[in-house]
């Protein structure tokens, strides 16, 4: 009972943390993508204004 | 009492200002033509006046009341891009349906009257699905005039119509204006519109670039207003 009990507890905590980490990673990647788009658009508009 | 008044109207799609501080008004008996490029905000403004959407800031008044009020809507007629009648119902059924919705004293009589005035009395029991394009458009015109609205809002009325329907619509609009009703229409067909219009308003990227009486000069050369007031 004890070893299985421990392994499943480990899985439990691992799973909980995994979900939160995966979510945070998705936030970070989205952040980078948005920042790039923003920079690209601003650059595009600056060039156009300067022309 | 001003028929249609837009006071400081803003409309945002997200953060993008589709309408910017629009000040317009139309007196009873006036015919205001809204002209402007695609995306200038003509349809957006018209839909706010018609009560299909709300202004972000500022307000629109029809005879001093909010367009969404039930009593105000009873006095407004609308012709949009679609003909707004049901394919599964016959011409007469459609008009009596709207007659009952607008609480007319005798829906059937009004329906018959307007079928005659738009030349559809012979096909009154035919299903709209079997109608030709011209007949469908004339039925849409009949639906808009059915409840004798004091204010008529037309969204690019002449684009989808065939010649006969245009003739019918122009005749009915002239009669309505003669009776002191008000018309506000957004349009690209400058020639047909400027013939009828008493006032012209030019929208440029959400702002009112020009608003004033229609001068004979404008009717002669439809491009004149654009040339003088419409910057790139």
């Amino acid at each position, binding site marked *: 009972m004890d070893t299985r009990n421990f392994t499943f507890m480990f899985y439990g905590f691992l799973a909980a943390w995994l979900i939160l980490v995966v979510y945070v990673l998705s936030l970070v990647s989205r952040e980078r993508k948005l920042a790039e788009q923003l920079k690209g658009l601003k650059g595009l508009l600056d060039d156009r204004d300067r022309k | 009492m001003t028929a249609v008044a837009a006071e400081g109207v803003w409309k945002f799609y997200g953060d993008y200002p589709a309408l910017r501080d629009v000040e317009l008004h139309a007196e009873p008996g006036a015919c205001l033509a809204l002209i402007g490029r695609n995306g200038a905000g003509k349809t957006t403004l018209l839909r706010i006046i018609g009560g299909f959407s709300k202004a972000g800031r500022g307000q629109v008044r029809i005879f001093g009341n909010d367009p969404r009020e039930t009593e105000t809507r009873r006095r407004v007629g609308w012709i949009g891009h679609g*003909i*707004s009648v049901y394919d*599964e119902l016959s011409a007469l059924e459609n008009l009596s*349906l709207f007659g*009952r*919705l*607008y609480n007319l004293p005798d829906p059937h009589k009004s329906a018959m009257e307007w079928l005659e005035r738009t030349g559809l009395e012979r096909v009154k029991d035919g299903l709209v699905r079997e109608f030709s394009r011209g007949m469908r458009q004339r039925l849409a015109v009949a639906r808009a005039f059915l409840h004798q609205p004091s204010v008529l809002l037309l969204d690019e009325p002449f684009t989808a119509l065939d010649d006969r329907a245009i003739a019918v619509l122009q005749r009915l609009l002239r009669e309505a204006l003669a009776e002191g009703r008000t018309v506000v229409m957004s349009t690209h067909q400058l020639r047909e519109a400027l013939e009828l219009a008493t006032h012209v308003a030019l929208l440029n990227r959400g702002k009112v670039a020009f608003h004033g009486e229609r001068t004979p000069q404008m009717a002669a050369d439809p491009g004149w207003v654009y040339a003088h007031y419409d910057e790139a």
Partner: protein
Amino acid sequence: MDFIRQTLVIARKDLRAELRTKEALNASLAFALVILVLFSFAFDPSEKETVDMSGGLLWIVFAFAGTLVLNRSFAREVPNDCLDALIAAPISGSALFLGKALANFALVISVELVSLPIFGIFYNVHWTGQLWSLLLVLALGTWGLTVIGTIFSALTVNIRLRELMAPLLVYPMLIPVLMSAMQLTMQLIAGKPLGGENEVWLRLLVAFDVIFTALSLVLLETVLVG
């Protein structure tokens, strides 16, 4: 009173338009019959099993067949921009909602009243034992189905993935209705009366209907006018 008259005008229009083409009605009926037949092949239930699963099977059929009709409710207004005409008409959002809901209710109930005897024949279940209580549960359950189906049809009317989106949103919302209706139907078909410990399910069904009818009456105007 104006409100009632306008509601009936809308309801009659919807029914007449639907009965003229019968497209949604036929699809819904055919769908219900196919599922009933398939289930009998798939499980080939014994007498006892049939009664146990009667509630579940019937309400799965009603829910799926019903949504076929309910999704059409506001989708029918899109082709000729008829929705604009209804919004421009001097009727309140609640009258429009109630009119459409009543028309939908009539259509879905008719599909159910056809499938019920067929269910009785296919699975030789004696379902007319407590007919009136069963019809009451049928009416309450179907009204819950109709309210959520109609308001979500309005919510998704201008959305490009409308046919896909409406079911995805409707079914999780409907779980309480389906659960209580299944429970009550099974008990009734098994011969038990409505009172006793089933009471709680009946109360939940009524509560669901009241809450969401009120919410929909208030919010339809906000949904349609931007």
